[in-house]
């Protein structure tokens, strides 16, 4: 019986994702616009597929090659989905980086569990991670339950105005609704496009960071090793989370050392999982019921549900929430939210990917099937496997203000912006309004902006050129 193999082609073996040894050591000063999504220009044909799909208009085609404007890119991965030539890639760390550390910890996201066929118990995946070479595993789903618990309390305190109960020193949202901080793509989007919503972003760190912090503390005590000998490896479903680990927005420093991809780990896990399953559970690296096993396999329903759209919101046990998936719908909802079109909401879950994180570009399984699989896995789990026992650890809150970056501003000053806006409007008048993309910009309006900014040539519009040629030939004909 072929129990674990996924019928779909693992994306790891297609050129869509690569793991070049490209992440050098972490810079002391983060690049605010560091990205995982990049172009392989050898493969790029300069077609307009990605150009038209980028939700933030970050792509231009210049000199026959696609280019990403890094200030606009949110690492959403839409261009990776759109490129038929596999020229857009998500970059992440290579599995070989495991050898750089003495003690290696894996942080598997809930979406990883949803990649396997007929998997009923996640302990099999956790076990296989140990067989693969990790010394410890900390479920992101387990940490997610702590985030849910802290957020439930935060909502209650904000709703009742019990401000004294709110944590000190963290960045507390001014008002409800709280917007989830779990999808870094969304947080980035808000930081460049929706400054009025920055205060609503949850001050609670993302589950993966919570997991990293808890795992590091556990390892330091367990091993006595210095921090630099401990490697924290997050297995990411998407490029946005790769970028976030390397250049976090709301925290000063991430505790994640390397970011691997679900699509890269998936095929490596399969043989071990089969072996463990075939041995009837004998080949486990941890004894069922032992303390070690309880420490590793502990996430409940709430945590596992985070892997799919709506899961995070459901863990808050409130009816006054909004859950939106898919980047286009997310942008639309943020616009409505900015206009205060929703009332009485307490929480907003926004996932850039359709279906939630099971829909990330670095996963293998179809997101809708993955969601069904998540339901199977969570079936016999307790509601929540983890709880805040003592007080909320201080690292649970953001420690850096997320600043607004006005990257879409036309000019440096209002005066300059106004005169550029006038120029843009004049240029738009002259363009045909076909939004064909042939000039290398996604729309005529974007092209007009590029021309006004001096980034493109007014003569770039092929329709205008054809028009000019036609008038010319008419003129010469009539002169004959």
């Amino acid at each position: 019986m072929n129990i674990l193999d996924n019928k779909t082609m693992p994306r790891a073996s297609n050129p869509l994702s690569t793991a070049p040894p490209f992440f050098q050591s972490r810079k002391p000063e983060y690049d605010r616009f560091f990205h995982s999504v990049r172009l392989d220009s050898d493969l790029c044909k300069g077609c307009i597929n990605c150009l038209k799909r980028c939700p933030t208009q970050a792509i231009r085609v210049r000199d026959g090659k696609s280019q990403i404007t890094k200030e606009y890119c949110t690492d959403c991965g839409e261009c990776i989905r759109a490129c038929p030539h596999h020229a857009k890639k998500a970059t992440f760390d290579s599995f070989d980086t495991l050898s750089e550390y003495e003690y290696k910890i894996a942080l598997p996201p809930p979406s990883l569990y949803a990649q396997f066929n007929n998997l009923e118990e996640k302990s099999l995946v956790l076990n296989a991670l140990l067989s693969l070479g990790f010394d410890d595993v900390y479920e992101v789903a387990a940490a997610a339950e702590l985030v849910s618990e802290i957020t439930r309390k935060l909502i209650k305190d904000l709703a009742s105005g019990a401000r004294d109960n709110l944590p000190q020193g963290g960045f507390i949202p001014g008002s409800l609704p709280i917007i989830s901080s779990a999808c870094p793509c969304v947080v980035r989007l808000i930081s460049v496009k929706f400054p009025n919503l920055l205060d609503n972003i949850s001050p609670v760190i993302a589950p993966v960071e919570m997991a990293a912090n808890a795992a590091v503390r556990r390892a330091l005590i367990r091993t006595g090793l210095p921090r630099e000998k401990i490697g924290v490896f997050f297995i990411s479903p998407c490029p946005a989370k790769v970028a976030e680990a390397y250049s976090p927005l709301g925290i000063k420093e991430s505790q994640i050392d390397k970011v691997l991809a679900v699509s890269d780990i998936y095929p490596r896990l399969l043989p071990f999982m089969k072996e463990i399953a075939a041995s009837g559970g004998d080949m486990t690296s941890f004894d069922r019921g032992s303390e070690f096993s309880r420490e590793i396999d502990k996430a409940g329903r709430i945590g596992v549900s985070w892997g799919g759209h709506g899961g995070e919101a459901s863990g808050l046990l409130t009816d006054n929430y909004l859950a939106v998936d898919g980047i286009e719908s997310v942008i639309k909802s943020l616009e409505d939210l900015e206009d205060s079109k929703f009332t009485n909401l307490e929480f907003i879950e926004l996932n850039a990917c359709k279906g939630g994180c099971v829909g990330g570009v670095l996963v293998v399984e179809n997101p809708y099937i993955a969601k069904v699989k998540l339901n199977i896995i969570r079936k016999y789990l307790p509601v929540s496997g983890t709880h805040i026992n003592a007080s909320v650890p201080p690292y649970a809150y953001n420690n850096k203000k997320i600043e607004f970056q006005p990257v879409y501003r036309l000019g440096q000053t209002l005066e300059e912006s106004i005169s550029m806006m006038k120029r843009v409007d004049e240029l738009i008048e002259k363009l045909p309004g076909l939004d064909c993309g042939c000039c290398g910009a996604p729309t005529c309006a974007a092209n007009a902006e590029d021309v006004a900014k001096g980034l493109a040539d007014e003569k770039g519009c092929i329709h205008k050129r054809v028009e000019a040629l036609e008038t010319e030939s008419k003129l010469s004909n009539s002169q004959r």
Partner: protein
Amino acid sequence: MSALEMRYEVPGNDFTRAGEASSAIKNKLKQMGIPPGVVRNVAIAVYEGEINMVIHASGGTIDVFVDSDAVSLVLRDTGGGIPDVELAMREGYTTAKEDIRSLGFGAGMGIPNMIKYTDEFKINSEVGKGTVVEMKVYLEK
């Protein structure tokens, strides 16, 4: 500094398109680097005005002027006008019908919000002729 002028037509016959002009204005202001708080106030005020033009009149025009001091808005319609402006300005006063209210409009907070979110507010209305709303939001407080 020369001011920027923009005009938006608000169609009165298509309720489903109400709010599009406000949305376009908001995006233009963001692109110009207008302070976020100002953008928010303008967006709320102009949205309320636009909705009123659609549900209480039959569409109209919105003129936006941006200069170094303020964002100024003039909303003009040729609808039925408001018989008692004082009354219309009160919180909770509405003449909206049930079908509109069931969509979440007609809470009677439109004009009060326009006043609340702007620095200058003027309304001129003549029954049978139409309504003109003039609003200003200062760039610096």
